[in-house]
């Protein structure tokens, strides 16, 4: 489209009255023609902002794609976990929160006496090496911890983690 053609259509362009194909041509011309862009801005100062923003490329990087695909994979693993197992995992996570919160509360109320790992038999066994297991055909990492409550009760808590999401 020529400059004359664009100038003749500017009023209709600003009134949103052009058909999509003609509007595309006008926009394409405006993107590359400083003179016609100035004419559009003279009619509507807001076009200075709108047209400038329209000419800005969107951000694009491979990290973003990786993050999206990691999220997709995580959702897929979660979906494939049987519902009963998902419930069990949620319950286990809740137990851990309660136990952790309780332990923290006790520690806040009672001045802590420094103890080393060696003074707390069983502390070494609390963390277990993660195992790589298959869940519905997907390889996941299974972490198991055996925390002990302040009352001395032993718990077993497991977490299933997508290895690709691990730091």
């Amino acid at each position: 489209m020529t400059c004359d053609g664009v100038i003749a259509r500017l009023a209709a362009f600003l009134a949103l009255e052009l058909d999509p194909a003609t509007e595309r041509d006008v926009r394409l011309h405006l993107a590359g023609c400083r003179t016609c862009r100035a004419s559009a801005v003279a009619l509507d100062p807001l076009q200075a902002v709108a047209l400038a923003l329209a000419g800005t490329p969107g951000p694009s990087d491979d990290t973003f794609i990786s993050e999206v695909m990691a999220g997709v994979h995580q959702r897929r693993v979660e979906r494939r976990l049987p519902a009963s197992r998902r419930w069990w995992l949620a319950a286990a996570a809740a137990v851990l929160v309660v136990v952790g919160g309780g332990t923290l509360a006790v520690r806040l109320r009672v001045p802590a006496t420094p103890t080393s790992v060696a003074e707390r038999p069983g502390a070494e066994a609390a963390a277990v090496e993660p195992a790589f297991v298959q869940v519905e055909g997907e390889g996941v990492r299974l972490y198991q911890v055996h925390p002990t409550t302040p009352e001395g009760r032993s718990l077993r808590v497991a977490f299933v983690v997508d290895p690709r999401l691990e730091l």
Partner: protein
Amino acid sequence: MGVLRMLARTDVSSEQDDRSLAAAAVAGDETAFADLVRRHQGGVRRCAGRILGDDEEARDVAQLAFIRAWENLAKYDTGWAFSTWLYRIATNLAIDVLRSRDSRNRTHVAHLHAVGDFIGPSAPRELAEGEVKRIFGELTAELTPAQRSAFVLREVEGLATSEVATILSCSEATVRNHVFQARAVLRRSLVARYPEYAPAGRARR
């Protein structure tokens, strides 16, 4: 750039490629879905960024939009352009974010001189783009989420009114109303803050 993206979106083979990739992704091909992310991340992130005025939030919204798209691929109606469907998801998420925050606290302060630079013959383009972006964030703070989304999709992204209506789930008349109301608010803001760039009687709607 926005205009070129719009032209690309109307390219029939490009839309067919999108549909083929979407079909492959539904069948479980994650590489095909990654290709869709690669093709559309720029447009979705830019659009979300314009609506939200915050690049970090826009990145999160765009990421969630793609994951939602993947989760709902089986429901994707191939009668729509894939980009329209994707923009609809992203715009709705961005509107949710706008409604859940006080957008006035996130506006940026800038000088409109950069807009003059943009029009001027020797403006350094990179600086102008950054300044215009901040100015836009400042001016749009008073818009409602619907006005802001309609203005960005129609005026900045250059989508057709019918497509914006599909994305926002409203009529074309409503889209026009939102855009004209947004223009009125923006123009008032422009006159109040930078009168030298909005002489009286210049712009009408």
